[in-house]
């Protein structure tokens, strides 16, 4: 069994009187693609926000390896190796595609303001390496032909893929994808599935929020189902698909049957 690299323990978060997540446990194994599914409002994006430090849990912990990362600063968590994309695209629109990715790679750079002004050898080396790395990532994702275009002028599908590229720029161990296929047509979904597999094969671990069942069944190793802030299933895709509780969560239960 591969070792666990991300471990959510008894994670609970309350917003006022609403319990958005109730004592959720979740383990992410190294090298797997784990899909997080559930009806709208189940708390999927909240899980992402807790992992990346946007929210602090009311109780419970998030462990990256052996280190508790809840309560750490967001950019620090990114530096520790967790990167994410956003459900509603949040690229830096006035930057080019390449600059977006380079901004991601900057988290691994060490040069500061003074070094940049003076143009120290390290500053030049890092700038050069970052640009090369960003190009490589764009090629890997297959959007290098758009390198010099402004992000806001890109076609929608390319913007979605650029979100992934920018996250990869931070050299994460774990990649969190928040509905990467939203708004895609079937053909684009097939392409995206190939990209996600390719990323996993390159050594990344992926946690994925998605609504499209065929995409999930095709690529994920394991599926976790959330409903009203509770984990109701955690198993192989084929098992989860036939779980009566999951079906009930998605389709509702006829009144006379309950």
């Amino acid at each position, binding site marked *: 069994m591969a070792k666990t690299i991300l471990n959510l323990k008894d994670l609970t978060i309350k917003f006022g009187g609403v319990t958005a997540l109730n004592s959720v446990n979740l383990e992410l194994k190294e090298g797997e693609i784990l899909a997080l599914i559930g009806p709208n409002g189940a708390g999927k994006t909240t899980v992402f926000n807790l992992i990346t430090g946007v929210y602090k849990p009311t109780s419970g912990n998030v462990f990256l390896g052996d280190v508790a990362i809840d309560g750490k600063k967001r950019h620090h968590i990114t530096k520790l190796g967790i990167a994410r994309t956003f459900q509603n695209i949040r690229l830096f629109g006035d930057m080019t595609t390449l600059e977006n990715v380079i901004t991601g790679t*900057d988290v691994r750079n060490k040069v500061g303001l003074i070094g940049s002004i003076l143009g120290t050898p390290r500053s030049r080396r890092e700038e050069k390496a970052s640009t090369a790395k960003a190009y490589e990532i764009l090629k890997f994702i297959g959007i290098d032909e758009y390198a010099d275009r402004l992000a806001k002028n890109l*076609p929608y599908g*390319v913007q979605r893929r650029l979100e992934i590229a920018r996250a990869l720029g931070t050299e994460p161990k774990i990649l969190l994808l928040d509905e990467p296929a939203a708004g895609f047509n079937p053909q684009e979904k097939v392409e995206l599935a190939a990209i996600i597999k390719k990323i996993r094969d390159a050594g990344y671990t992926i946690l994925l929020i998605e609504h499209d069942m065929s995409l999930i069944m095709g690529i994920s190793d394991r599926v976790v189902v959330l409903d009203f802030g509770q984990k109701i299933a955690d198993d192989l895709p084929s098992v989860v698909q036939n779980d009566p509780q999951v079906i009930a969560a998605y389709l509702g239960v006829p009144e006379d049957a309950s």
Partner: protein
Amino acid sequence: MINLRDKGAEFWERSNRPVRVLTVFAIMAVVAALPYAGNTFLQTPVAAFDAVLVYPMGMFILMALGLNVVVGKSGMLDLGYVAFFAVGAYTMAILGTRTGLNTWEIMPIGIAAAMFAGVLLAIPTLRLRGDYLAIVTLGFGEIVRVSALNSEAIGGALGIAGVPFPPGLGFEYQLLDQKYFFWTILVMILLVIWVIRRLTVRRPGRAWESIRQDEDAAELMGVSTYKYKIWAFVFGAAIGGGAGVFYASRSMVIAPDNFTLNTSILILACVVFGGMGNIWGVIVGAAILGYLPDRFRFLSDARLLLFGLVLVVFMNLRPEGILPRKKREKAIVKKGSGA
């Protein structure tokens, strides 16, 4: 209206190195010759033209460049920028009149003092954004001015007189012929442009740009927004402080009245008028807004009416400033096949 920014950028990209070098030198020669243009249509009716070139024009350009880093590049609205200018000026005035230090020796001290003031302002305001940040910075600017006004030790409302001129560097700075002051400030402006351009294309520039566009996304992509917001304030403050030191040394007399909210707003107007985030636009904007009120001084109070009218008309014609920030894509774009 013709797109000046794109025309300029296209010319630059089309040109080879010798043409570029030649263009830069030609522009610099023309600008450096400006103090000799006093008897042409450019002449200002009341103040001498060479003095107007130094203040307000040169000083405004310098300050607008500094404020542009905070407002234009990093997207933080600062309405108290004049405070840093004041800190630099008072450092010069106090040390210049009470110690044997000369302007060039005080310059780094003044810049350091302004940077320190920048940290003081940055730390409590880091959590604030937008309107709230603007209000706090506005308050900061007023605190500095009112403190100076009420401190008898630094002259109170009368300010400090007898601030020494900068010592000459093989020439003498003169009151009636300010071309040396102008050339000195030109060197300062070139230095600031050089530094800002370096920062813009490297890591700090990207960090500021990402903070301006989406602060939360920037932080989640690993940008230490805390650190870079402080740096933006401190860097902007350093430029304001340097301008202040030179201003005090040239003007010989400074008083709290030189550092009112009006000046902060005017510098901000230069940035917005010229084009937020575009240093060439900001320079042109500051030069125009510094020059116009003096050019139309013969209209006495009506000149402010005219000044306001120019602002309103121009901002309607070019809502993003004279030279807006980079929006166009590089000339060489490979054909996209669509996703």
